[in-house]
């Protein structure tokens, strides 16, 4: 398979077909996994080799669907660009959609650049129906599908891929891909940016693979769009539970959904709590504040003085604050270590409770500073050098 960029494909396609392909490769996001675009490969021509290019008029279209990639051949004719395309559906030789249910094929308009893309979407809908029909080979999987279909939260955002039946063992497998109805709109913006990838739409997809018809081997996996994954603390931050033995999707999927929703709420609340914390410190320490993170409220630096001894306190707030305790780093402004760094001590355990409000935390922190500073000063004099 030769991967090619959209621009290369557009340069090689016959000029009359270019607008149709342009919509597909530039705007072609279909299905639940809309983070990936449709891809075109294996551009070929139906003309003789003596025909001057560009004259490619047939290609393979890669379509993400239910965790698989469908590879469909699309065949035009460069000398008859007004004719509608024809399709070969890869290995799915039995997939035969009803043409009358493809409006953009019935009323094919070669002059409409969106016609091919719309036709592909209609075919994917037909393909989805075809895959759902194949589930009838397994009553267990059909039950899973029907129960999810009844719930409007999941039924409308589901893709199913029924695998090949093993002719020897009679085993049948299927994969369900569901878009979880989780609201990410309140996640603070600063958490969603700072990713080198194109964020695209914020989406969470749950893939559940049934390796056998009796659902004894079930493997779930959660896919998050890059910005959401970054906001929640990376790929290791969220672990979904294993599919319970004897369980069913209609119970499991809401459980995963709730877990994700709780996580998102936690992150949102953590942001507000951090902001409250920083505000309280600003209020209590006033002129002693050197700087603080005004966007994410994750850091704060104070310059304090105790009996003519000046010192810095760096406060680092973790992502899951207030559940996780902030780290305090005391730093002398006079003393250096042997490696040339300012002498400092990190304190991670000090009087703290996640149930305190910001004001209480600031007061308690202040009290702690007063109790700890003499000890810190002694350490600085003893271990640091001026």
């Amino acid at each position: 398979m030769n991967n090619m960029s959209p621009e290369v494909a557009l340069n090689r396609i016959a000029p009359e077909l270019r607008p149709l392909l342009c919509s597909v490769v530039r705007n072609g996001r279909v299905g639940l996994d809309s983070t990936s675009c449709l891809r075109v490969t294996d551009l070929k021509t139906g003309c003789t080799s003596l025909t001057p290019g560009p004259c490619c008029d047939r290609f393979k279209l890669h379509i993400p669907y239910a965790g698989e990639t469908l590879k469909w051949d699309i065949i035009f004719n460069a000398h008859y660009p007004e004719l509608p395309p024809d399709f070969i559906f890869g290995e799915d030789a039995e997939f035969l959609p009803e043409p009358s249910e493809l409006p953009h094929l019935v009323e094919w308009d070669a002059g409409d650049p969106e016609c091919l893309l719309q036709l592909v979407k209609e075919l994917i809908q037909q393909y989805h129906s075809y895959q759902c029909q194949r589930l009838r080979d397994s009553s267990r999987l059909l039950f899973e599908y029907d129960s999810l279909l009844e719930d409007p939260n999941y039924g409308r955002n589901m893709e199913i891929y029924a695998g090949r039946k093993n002719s020897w063992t009679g085993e049948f497998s299927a994969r369900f891909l569901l878009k979880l109805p989780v609201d990410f709109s309140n996640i603070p913006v600063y958490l969603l940016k700072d990713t080198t990838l194109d964020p695209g739409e914020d989406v969470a997809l749950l893939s559940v693979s049934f390796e056998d018809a009796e659902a004894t081997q079930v493997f779930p996996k959660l896919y998050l769009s890059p910005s959401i994954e970054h906001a929640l603390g990376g790929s290791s931050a969220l672990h979904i539970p294993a599919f319970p033995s004897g369980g069913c999707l209609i119970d499991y999927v809401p459980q995963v959904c709730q877990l994700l929703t709780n996580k998102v709420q936690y992150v949102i609340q953590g942001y507000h709590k951090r902001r409250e914390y920083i505000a309280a410190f600003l209020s209590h320490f006033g002129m002693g504040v050197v700087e603080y993170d005004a966007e994410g409220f994750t850091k704060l630096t104070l310059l304090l003085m105790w009996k003519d001894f000046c010192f810095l306190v760096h406060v680092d707030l973790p992502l899951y604050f207030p559940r996780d305790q902030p780290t305090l780093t005391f730093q002398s402004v006079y003393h250096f270590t042997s490696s040339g760094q300012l002498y400092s001590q990190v304190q991670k355990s000090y009087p703290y409770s996640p149930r305190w409000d910001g004001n209480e935390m600031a007061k308690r922190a202040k009290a702690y500073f007063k109790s700890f500073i003499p000890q810190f000063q002694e350490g600085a004099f003893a271990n640091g050098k001026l």
Partner: protein
Amino acid sequence: MAAAPTEPTVRLPGIVLASLMFQHVNSDSDAEGLVLGESKFEEQITISDSQADHIHIEEIYNIQKHRTFHQLNTFYNSVGDVKVEAVHKLLADNKQESVIGWYRQRRNTDQRMTLREKIVHENLKTSLSNPHMVFVLLTPSELTPAGSTYRTEYAAFISRSRKFLNVPVLVTNLGLLEPLSYWKVSASCSAAGYNLTMKKHGAKFFSSNGLLREVNEVNKMNDSLQSELQKTCGDVEESELLVETLQTEVSALRRKVREKRQSQAGTDVVVDLSVQRNNLLLEAVSALFTRSPLYHSQTLTLEAFPVPVVPSVCCDQHVSTMTLTKCDAANPSRTNCRRPRAARKRRNSES
């Protein structure tokens, strides 16, 4: 008796296959048309003492000729509905009953039926009321990246309960041929009908020496080309000879000139080739510019007042600034102005 499933086979004469391939090679797009012939079912019963009688049904599609549509998508629309009138129009001689299927040729695609082909096939069966129809697919493609070698794959399909089965194709005149064997001479045939046909149509294809007409024409063209090439070679050879002769003459002449020069070298006076000064120009410049205040250098005091100095001559330092001795215009061979008789005055500048 145990019944066995049918085993369909498509029999395709070599001439029809060659004709299809040749037609598509000369076509700049996909091609499609109808295949004519006859389909038959032969029941064979195998009687055996050791096991139950075995019924074997052979379903044979004999393709005899083909008809091509001049344009694609002529006999069906975008959703595969068949236009029977287009089929009838192609079969102008009312040979509908001999239609046993249709074919399509598409370059650089897989050997699988497309969506529309499947729909058209089912609809064609219905339109022509023939449940036993075959679809022949030819897919030429490039075998090498340089495009030097191509291959054409062919396959046939029939449909059973809306499922499409790939059917083996037997090219009849190559059926029993081993892959490494080639026919070097055509097989003799003593059939009267064959001889009559050859006699009737042979003159259109074969010349009197038994070769294909086109072969003779190609040979004639080749002969013409060869004679033109020889003529051109002769012209080139002549011009080369002429060039050689001229070069020889030129070399001889150069040698003569060189010898003549050498013999004259001892007697002639060496001519002074030093550059002669243009005294007239020098005189004119001297006359014009020596007295022009624009070209005189000026010394200034600290208060920016000019120091009264006698302007110097720019062309020759040795010439007095008081009076300029006129060069002898009558004798342009004199290269320098003469030194004047007046005493030379030095120019002093006040600091």
